[in-house]
């Protein structure tokens, strides 16, 4: 019988070399660490979610009344999940697209635009008009305005002859500042009662979100975040900058426009749902880079979403059950989140 000899190796590569380290993780240790982090975050997230549903529930566990109350509280959990998914995925995608890890999409004038539209609504329509203009149409309109603004800005700034990311960022910041000034001016002309209505709308607040927005917000969030996750491998390349991206055969401008469009959808959903959350995305992204221990977006995205969920549910839980102030979650996010961020930064010595 003919013995099949193994043909000569195509290469002179020694067979004992590890052929695994080119992927997402440099070593097996990093890989294990990432999975442990994911496991810990999932466990913590589940515990906090259960805590939010069950803590302080006046009815005995398992009774129909218990579940009814838990069901009502579950809405907040869904809102939290949507917001952190939007903020975490948008911030990381934005940072990779712009090759800059110390900015967030918020500085591109998103929040200023939200504040400006809300202020303009109160300014021009008055309290009565704003109260009439509520519900899904108002939410959809807010979404549409923000995505349109973002696409106009990005499209205009990136397509010009001298179009580049730095100019885009700078113009975004300047426009954000300008919109902020316009809002500030209009706010000064409001009557105290109108201003009161407006202030309530401008605080980042989970309990503020309307249940009726969710059927629109949830699919948009899942679709945009999912598309970005599917494009992870391309994002890994785009994060290396324009020259490397082009050299490796991707159309850099096209990739950036797609990413920025999806980012603007995510940011619009989050901001229109609960208002500005400037610090959350930045905090979550920075922590996720540390936790994930890889450059691969396939892992960074989920780790970031989990980190964000734990952070936000934790903050919400503390505020609601210890300080009885569930309204202003953004305050504790900035306090605890900022502290964590500083500790990580000081210990590691770099971003």
């Amino acid at each position, binding site marked *: 019988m003919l013995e099949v000899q193994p043909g000569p190796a195509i290469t002179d*590569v020694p067979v004992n070399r590890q052929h695994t380290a080119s*992927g997402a993780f*440099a*070593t097996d240790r990093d890989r294990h660490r990432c999975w442990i982090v994911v496991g810990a975050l999932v466990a913590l997230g589940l515990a906090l979610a259960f805590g939010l549903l069950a803590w302080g529930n006046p009815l005995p566990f398992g009774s129909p009344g218990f579940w009814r109350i838990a069901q009502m509280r579950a809405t907040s959990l869904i809102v939290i999940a949507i917001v952190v998914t939007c903020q975490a995925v948008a911030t990381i995608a934005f940072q990779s697209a712009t*090759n800059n*890890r110390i900015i967030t999409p918020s500085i591109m004038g998103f929040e200023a635009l939200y504040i400006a539209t809300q202020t303009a609504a109160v300014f021009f329509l008055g309290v009565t008009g704003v109260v009439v203009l509520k519900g899904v149409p108002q939410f959809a309109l807010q979404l549409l305005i923000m995505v349109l603004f973002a696409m106009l800005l990005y499209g205009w700034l990136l397509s010009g002859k001298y179009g580049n990311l730095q100019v885009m960022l700078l113009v975004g910041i300047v426009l954000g500042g300008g919109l902020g000034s316009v809002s500030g001016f209009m706010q000064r002309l409001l009557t105290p009662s109108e201003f009161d209505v407006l202030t309530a709308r401008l605080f980042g607040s989970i309990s503020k979100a309307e249940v009726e927005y969710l059927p629109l917000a949830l699919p948009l969030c899942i679709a945009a975040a999912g598309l970005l996750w599917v494009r*992870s491998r391309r994002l890994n390349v785009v*994060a290396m900058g324009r020259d490397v991206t082009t050299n*490796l*055969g991707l159309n850099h401008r096209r990739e950036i426009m797609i990413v920025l469009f999806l980012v603007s959808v995510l940011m619009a959903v989050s901001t229109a749902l609960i208002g500005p959350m400037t610090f959350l995305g930045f905090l979550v992204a920075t922590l996720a880079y540390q936790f994930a221990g890889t450059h691969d977006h396939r892992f960074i995205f989920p780790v970031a979403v989990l980190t964000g969920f734990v952070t936000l549910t934790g903050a919400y839980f503390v505020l609601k059950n210890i300080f009885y102030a569930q309204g202003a979650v953004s305050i504790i996010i900035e306090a605890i989140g900022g502290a964590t961020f500083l500790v990580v930064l000081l210990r590691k010595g770099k971003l």
Partner: protein
Amino acid sequence: MIEINGVCKNYSSSARIGPVNLQIPKGGITALVGPNGAGKSTLLTMAGRLLDPDAGTLTISGHDISRTRSKDLAKIVSILRQENHFVTRLTVRQLVGLGRFPHSGGRINRVDEEAITRAIDFFKLTELEGRYLDQLSGGQRQRAYVAMVLCQETDYILLDEPLNNLDMKHSVQMMKHLRKVADELGRTVVIVLHDINFAAHYADWICAMKDGQIVEFGTPEQILVDETLSRIFDTPVSCMRGPKGPIAVYY
């Protein structure tokens, strides 16, 4: 062969490059030399399609780079810019692995892994492959970058001043590696060099640029002539026979 026909790039009315007509032969090392601001890097980046020319056509082994899909070009030509700053934290092996993207689409299989290992071993980075880029010296990092474009396995490799910031030893090592890339792997290397003596010793062809124009193209022996070099660099240069071929003395 890289064919450049009537390529122009206008930065302003006073700073314009071209029209350039040039044919860079297939195989060997072609060095682009010339004074600062002559347009060497601009020409190279246009050939690597990182910069769009304002006029003219560029063809690389029969493919017009403005018409060919970028994805297909990435398997024909690769380019490395002078400045590389990456925010992403990568190990040497992961960086080199990114060079496989045109072939793998980011899904690295066994063939890719072998190509990565070959490129790493070729540039003597075997011991360093698990190190992060921020843990390397400048010379080692530069080698890792070049290994990345080598790993792309393109026939044409364009390098913009790869000797920048390298000391004597690392410069010589890099040029020897590139010589091997050309001789043993049969790739065509086009390289922007500042030191005319490196070009003279390691390149097969020297292309001299000045004020956005090609002024000379030839073998090192043809270019290393007192009068020619003095004219190109606007400074008195005298060429002499060194122990390993012609040397230009300009200090």
